[in-house]
Each structure stands twice: as structure tokens, then as C-alpha cells.
């Protein structure tokens, strides 16, 4: 049985539920001990959930600081902007260690790359068709930005960083807070959209993208596939949508500049 099949058949949390059920069927003495264990477990779970919430808030705040404080006021110094990013990455790394998460578990792997791409293909085609339709209606196709090769190369790299933070960290913490499925997917998409405010088109696009990527990640955690999809969709947006609508992908305080 492959790792993915194991994950699908036995989703995280099922083992815990089984153990809780076993404990509930014990005789009364054992039940008392089990109840006290459950109570202690509940307290610790609440602690873990609160911590997960704090982690989400902390990492989100780092990205908000970059978009709303550093980049607009530091003469576009990417170096200064890198400081809060570094803090966030350090916290994510330490948090993975504290919670015992390995790189493979987070999604740094290639064994399920094709499977993740297969899942992404249909929604990506649908989104691409929609973007092309908007571009065709507006007659706004343009290649100028795509000729800047450094920018084109940077997109998937930046996409990978974003997807790692968003899925490899926030998605996983959101699952600790509200479980796997729609609630955590919505949380991830909302945070992704929040980070792209106040650019209306980008906020809408990232909310939709966030839903798809978060949902795919929960089924097949693979960050390179998500980064590739992220980069391609960004290219599509820049190629097809009018620059006035996207405002050069500006977000945060720079959107007003």
C-alpha cells in the first residue's frame, strides 16, 4: 500500500478516534482512568489548537508586515523585506520540528508529483479558460511582461515559497484547528486572499486558487506541483488580464502608489 493510499484510507485523526473509542469500551475503573486521560488530552488538544491558531496568525502577520509596512516604505528594498520572511520561515521550521513533521509529510517530495498534477489539471484548465475568455473579451493579451525572463523564472520560485507557507504550514495548522475538509480549506483560501488585499482582482483570483490548492494539498500533499500550478496561473493572469485591472500584481500599501 502506497503512502497516499494509506493517507486516503486512514485520514489523520482516525487513529485518535479509534483509540478514543477503544478507551470508551473499557470497564468502569478503566473508564475513570480513561476519562481523566481524555480530559487531560482535551486540555492539551485545546492548547495545541490555540498554538496552531497563534502560528497561523504569526506567519500571516509576517507576510502582512512585508506587504503593508516594509516594501512600500523601504524604498523597495527586497533585503529588508526578507527579514520578516526570514522570521516566518524560521518559525515554520522550528514548528515543524516541535510538531514532529518531516519534509516528506509537508509536501517536499516528487513521488506523488504526477498524481497532484492530475488533480490540479482540471481546475487549472477551467481557470485558464476563464482567464483567456476575460482576456479575449477585453482584448488585453500582452507579452511584454513575459519577456522579462528573470521575472518569469522568479514566479514559480516565489510560488513555491508561498505554497510552502500556505499549504505546508497554514493548511496543516488549519487542519489542527478545524479539521480536514471544507472548513480548513476555506480558512487557507481566506488567508491567501487577505494577503492580496486590496487588489480586488488578485484577491478574488487568490481566493479561488486558494480553495483549489488547499483542497488538492489535503488530498495529495505535493508542494512542487502546487508551485508549478501557481507560477503558470500567475503567468496566465499577467498575459491575459488588462494591466490596469491587475495593477502590476501590486498588493498591500503599494497598491495605492
Amino acid at each position, binding site marked *: 500500500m502506497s503512502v497516499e493510499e494509506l493517507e486516503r484510507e486512514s485520514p489523520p485523526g482516525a487513529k485518535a478516534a479509534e483509540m478514543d473509542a477503544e478507551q470508551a469500551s473499557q470497564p468502569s475503573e478503566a473508564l475513570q482512568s480513561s476519562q481523566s486521560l481524555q480530559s487531560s488530552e482535551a486540555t492539551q488538544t485545546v492548547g495545541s489548537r490555540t498554538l496552531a491558531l497563534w502560528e497561523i496568525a504569526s506567519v500571516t502577520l509576517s507576510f502582512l*508586515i512585508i506587504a503593508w509596512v516594509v516594501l512600500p516604505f523601504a524604498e523597495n528594498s527586497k533585503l529588508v523585506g526578507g527579514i520578516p520572511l526570514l522570521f516566518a520561515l524560521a518559525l515554520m521550521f522550528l514548528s515543524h520540528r516541535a510538531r514532529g513533521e518531516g519534509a516528506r509529510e509537508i509536501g517536499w517530495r516528487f513521488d506523488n508529483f504526477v498524481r497532484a498534477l492530475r488533480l490540479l489539471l482540471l481546475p487549472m484548465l477551467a481557470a485558464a479558460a476563464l482567464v483567456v475568455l476575460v482576456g479575449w473579451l477585453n482584448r488585453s493579451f500582452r507579452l511584454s511582461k513575459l519577456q522579462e525572463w528573470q521575472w518569469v523564472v522568479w514566479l514559480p520560485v516565489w510560488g513555491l515559497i508561498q505554497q510552502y507557507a500556505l499549504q505546508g504550514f497554514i493548511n496543516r495548522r488549519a487542519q489542527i484547528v478545524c479539521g480536514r475538509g471544507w472548513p480548513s480549506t476555506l480558512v487557507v483560501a481566506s488567508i491567501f486572499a487577505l494577503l492580496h488585499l486590496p487588489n480586488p482582482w488578485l484577491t478574488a483570483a487568490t481566493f479561488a486558487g486558494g480553495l483549489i490548492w488547499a483542497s488538492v494539498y489535503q488530498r495529495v500533499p505535493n508542494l512542487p506541483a502546487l508551485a508549478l500550478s501557481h507560477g503558470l496561473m500567475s503567468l496566465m493572469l499577467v498575459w491575459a488580464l488588462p494591466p490596469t485591472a491587475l495593477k502590476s500584481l501590486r498588493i498591500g500599501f503599494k497598491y495605492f502608489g
Partner: protein
Amino acid sequence: MISRRETGETPEALARLTHYLIIKSIVDVLFVGVFAVGFYYTAFSPYLRGWLDDASLRGVSGWAVNSADARSPVEVQLYIDGRFVESRLAEFPRPDLVAAGATEDERHGFYFFLPPLEEGEHEARVYAVHASGAGKRRTLQQLGNPFRFRLEATPAEPFFRGWLDEANAVSVRGWVVSREDLRARVEVQLYIDGRLVETRVADQPRRDLVESGIPEGEYGFFFFTPPLPPGEHEARVYAVHQSADANGRTLRLVGRPARFTIPQ
């Protein structure tokens, strides 16, 4: 839901994580604080000094100096009633600044003519412009306090230049020239104690104005003072401005009102 049992978290690990989060929160606050202070000192120069001395019918005046680079004049901007009026360099001679020890060089004064304003209360603010971020960012620092003043007449500036030189029991005289067309003859009206006395055209020769940098021409006006009862009186001369818009003709005060006394 991913449980603690699955991830292999231990209470110690969670406690450690709590410490990391506390440290990161503190570091975040410190970073934003240091960044904000750094930005403040970059965007707003602590070396800019100055004051808005006066705002009245005569104009708006004051001084500004950048202590870090006292030789370069500071750019100042005038706002009246919250609206931008004009930007210029503070390089007017102000010997009193040197005398007071405020600056080493006297050329740090500024003077703005008032724009066309309605009669009534107005507020003038003057800001020093500070460029930072390799000139990409320009910030305004207010000089002194906002200055409230009351206009009882609309000044001749910026459409005319002129002055009411003298008003006495015999005559009222001065000069006025149109800034738009030096050859144009300006129509002027004399008011005494708020009543129209006479309308004339400023067409008297005033060769003395050449020394003031005004091209030779006929810009002077001269009125005989009408018979007035003994006591204090006020003379005002207005230039008639014909605007292209719907406002039509407006009277714009030349110089300042002049007070004079008719003896018993």
C-alpha cells in the same frame, strides 16, 4: 483533525513552540518598531527648522532652513484652506535670522503672494519639503503653526502688481500694472471709507518703477481727494479684473488700505 498522537508532539515540544511564538511576537514588534522609527527619521528630517511668521493681505512670509545643509535653500509649499497654492525656494534675504543666531546665512526667508481668495476667514499653512528614498518620496513638514487671517478685500496679486503709495488730504496715488499684459491699461477705482469716489485708468508715467525692475511705462494713478469731513479716513484703490469665467469683473485691492487724517 490532525491529532497530537499522530504528529508525535510532546508537551515539552509544545512548550518549546510556545516560547518560539512568544519570541517571534516580540521580534515582530521590535522589527516594526525599529522600522517605524528608522522610516520616521528618514522621511521626516529632524534638521528642518522654520516658522510661518505672517499671513495677511500682504502675503505669507516666514523662514525655513535645513541645519544639516544650511547652504541649500529649502523648498516650501503654501496651502491655503487645505489647498495647495504654490511651491518655491526659501531664499529670500532675512538678515534678522542671522542677527537672532538662527542661521549663518540670511537667505532663508520665503514670501508668497496670496492667491485670489474670497473675503473672510482663511488659514495658511506652510510646509517644508523633504526628499528621501533617492528622491522617490517627498514628505511635508509643517513650519510653525497654521496661521489664521481675515481678508476684507481680494488682493491684486497674482493678476496685478502695484502699490498704494500715499493717501492724504490732497491726493491718493500709486501704481498698478497687469502681470498678464504690461501694455494693458488697468482700470482702478478709489474708495474712501467704503464708498466709491472715482474710476480712472492707471496711465500716468512712473519712471521711478524702472529701478524696481518694472519696464518703463505708464502705470501710475492719481486721484484728487474729495472734500471730506475732518477726522480719520481710509482710502482703498481697487484694480478691476476682468475674468474669462462667469465671475466677470472683480475688484482687487492694490497694496493695502491707507489711513489718513483730515485736520480740523
